[in-house]
């Protein structure tokens, strides 16, 4: 019996020694990884928080169904995970996508709907729309694939302070590698890039952070005069009366401010007009005239109303003749909050007052 006990003790000791030797054999690199992981877990988020959050870059690329995709407008108010990759990637891209998809499928439906996963192809030549549809569809039906020229993609990367895409040598089979940023960028619902997730982020990490990020709130103790965030400026539907002939069109909209600080509307952008001007009415020598303005203030807790006889936007150099029922996106440019997207609809002139009253009533609720 004594020998058995001694043998058992010896075995456990031997097993422990083998494991210890194995663990030590991994060396300082593994130790550093473990330390980094411990540090990551000690913080509130599993991802790496940016000390200086960046606003969402404004760009429009083509989605995998061939439609223009306005990144700011289409992801406004949602947690957005942005990743640059390519479908021929043998390691990082499919692992990232598979891990996010696995966690998304596990989240409650309302939470899933608050999250946008956007994949921008770093290899547009090989990543055809069909290939993007097929590849992303394997992971999750809600994933959005975007394509643009490599110059456009590199511009976006530069705006996000990420390295440009680098293509490797083409081998005899026509294959080549694509060097690209390996991290996933997380934009909180207020439109700011706040966290980055390097390769190696586990499903358990995503599960913790996605839930937190969908209900993101500014940290306690944030300064009261912090600049307004795009999500704090809530635009109504914009209305554009059918313009007469080829002439410019007016755009009316109401923007409610939920921000704690004032801001100023300084302009707007839309793909249907070459130029957008902000106009107001002023009295000159007893006569009311329309003049171009540099900006219109919007006060905290108040609403900015662009309406007939007051402030409004003028769409010049229209790309095509607008007809009742047409819809398009307009991006309002605020001095501090940046761009805020809104949907616009072209309506008969006679319906303007009724539509604006309706939208104001909705805003009141």
């Amino acid at each position, binding site marked *: 019996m004594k*020998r*058995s006990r*001694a*043998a*058992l003790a*010896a*075995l*456990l000791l031997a*097993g422990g020694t*083998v*494991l210890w*030797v*194995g*663990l030590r*054999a*991994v060396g300082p690199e*593994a130790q550093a990884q473990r330390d980094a992981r411990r540090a990551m877990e000690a913080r509130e988020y599993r991802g790496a928080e940016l000390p200086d959050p960046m606003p969402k870059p404004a760009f429009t690329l083509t989605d995998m169904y061939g439609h223009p995709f306005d990144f700011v407008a289409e992801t406004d108010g949602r947690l957005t995970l942005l990743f640059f990759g390519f479908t021929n990637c*043998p*390691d990082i891209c*499919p*692992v990232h996508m*598979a*891990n996010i998809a*696995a*966690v998304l499928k*596990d989240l409650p439906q309302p939470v899933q709907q608050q999250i946008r996963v956007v994949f921008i192809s770093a290899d547009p030549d090989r990543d055809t729309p069909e290939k993007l549809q097929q590849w992303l569809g*394997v992971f999750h039906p809600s994933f959005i694939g975007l394509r643009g020229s490599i110059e456009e993609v590199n511009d976006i990367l530069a705006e996000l302070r990420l390295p440009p895409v680098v293509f490797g040598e083409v081998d005899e089979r026509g294959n080549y590698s694509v060097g690209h940023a390996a991290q996933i960028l997380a934009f909180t619902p207020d439109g700011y890039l706040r966290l980055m997730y390097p*390769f*190696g982020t*586990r*499903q*358990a990490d995503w*599960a913790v952070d996605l839930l937190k990020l969908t209900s993101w709130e500014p940290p306690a103790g944030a300064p009261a005069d912090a600049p307004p965030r795009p999500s704090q400026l809530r635009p109504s539907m914009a209305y554009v009366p059918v313009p007469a002939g080829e002439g410019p069109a007016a755009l009316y909209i109401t923007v409610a401010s939920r921000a704690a600080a004032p801001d100023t509307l300084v302009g707007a952008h839309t793909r249907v007009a070459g130029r957008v001007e902000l106009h107001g009415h002023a009295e000159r020598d007893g006569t009311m005239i329309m003049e171009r303005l540099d900006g219109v203030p919007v006060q905290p807790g108040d609403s900015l109303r662009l309406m007939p006889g007051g402030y409004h936007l003028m769409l010049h150099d229209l790309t095509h003749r607008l007809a009742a029922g047409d819809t398009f996106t307009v991006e309002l440019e605020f001095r501090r909050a940046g761009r805020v997207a809104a949907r616009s609809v072209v309506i008969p002139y006679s319906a303007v007052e009724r539509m604006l009253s309706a939208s104001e009533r909705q805003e009141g609720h």
Partner: protein
Amino acid sequence: MQWWCSAQGEPWTWAWQAYPGVWLFIGIIATGYARLLRRTRAAGGGAFRSSIALFATGLLLLWLSLDWPIGAIGAGYLASVHMVQFLLMGLIVPPLLLYGIPEQAYEQLPPRLLAVLTPVTRPVVAFTSFNLMVILTHLPPVVDTLMATQLGSFAIDMLWLGGGIIFWWPVCVGTPGGSQLRELAKVGYLGLYLIAMKPVFIYLTFSRFPQYATYELAPRISNISARADQQMAGLMMEVVGMIIILLAVGAVFLRWSAREARAETAPVQAAPAALADPQR
């Protein structure tokens, strides 16, 4: 040059890769076995054809589980294949190797080896150490740390094989340690293993997320998700493990009944000879 399979983090390729450490290891075992048989024959042993066939099968399966592609995929790509390796090295190969050593050959084992094996293969020690080792070598930090290096991966493989041999010894080998269990005790011993493995099975099968970074972050080798792969590993451990244990229990009963049948017929056959001898 890689000597032993380990997790590399490189995209998988079906291009064959050599692992000389595996060949060397298999070669050492084969040479040791051949020398043991020579010594046993010199001491008056027989032909041992069935023993050689069992040992060769065990060695072949061991080689398959360690070498490319199973060894490489199990080390760094799929947890389910890693489980196949465990089932082979811990539950299938050891009894084949042990039954592959003729009974007379155990008498020829070096005394120093026997001095180590005798206490270690006592049923309580063997059962406890094997099951602790199995649990330990399935803990995520241990797997993720050890599988990343050739030495660590080698350590896990040796723990499985060595632990398996110790675990099966009381069931398969009676001599010379004298620690073989009685038949019913063998059945209980094997049945207890199924209970002891339940925590690992439950952990692998019902975890909400993949537990091993090695397999979760490995370049994809198939469309199977990391979680499904881990669940498959857990189910294999339970189902295949149970089948192996049931087969082993069946073999124990067969040998038992065969021995009892021999014991019953032996006096009847001996009787005429005894009657023929008036001196007795």
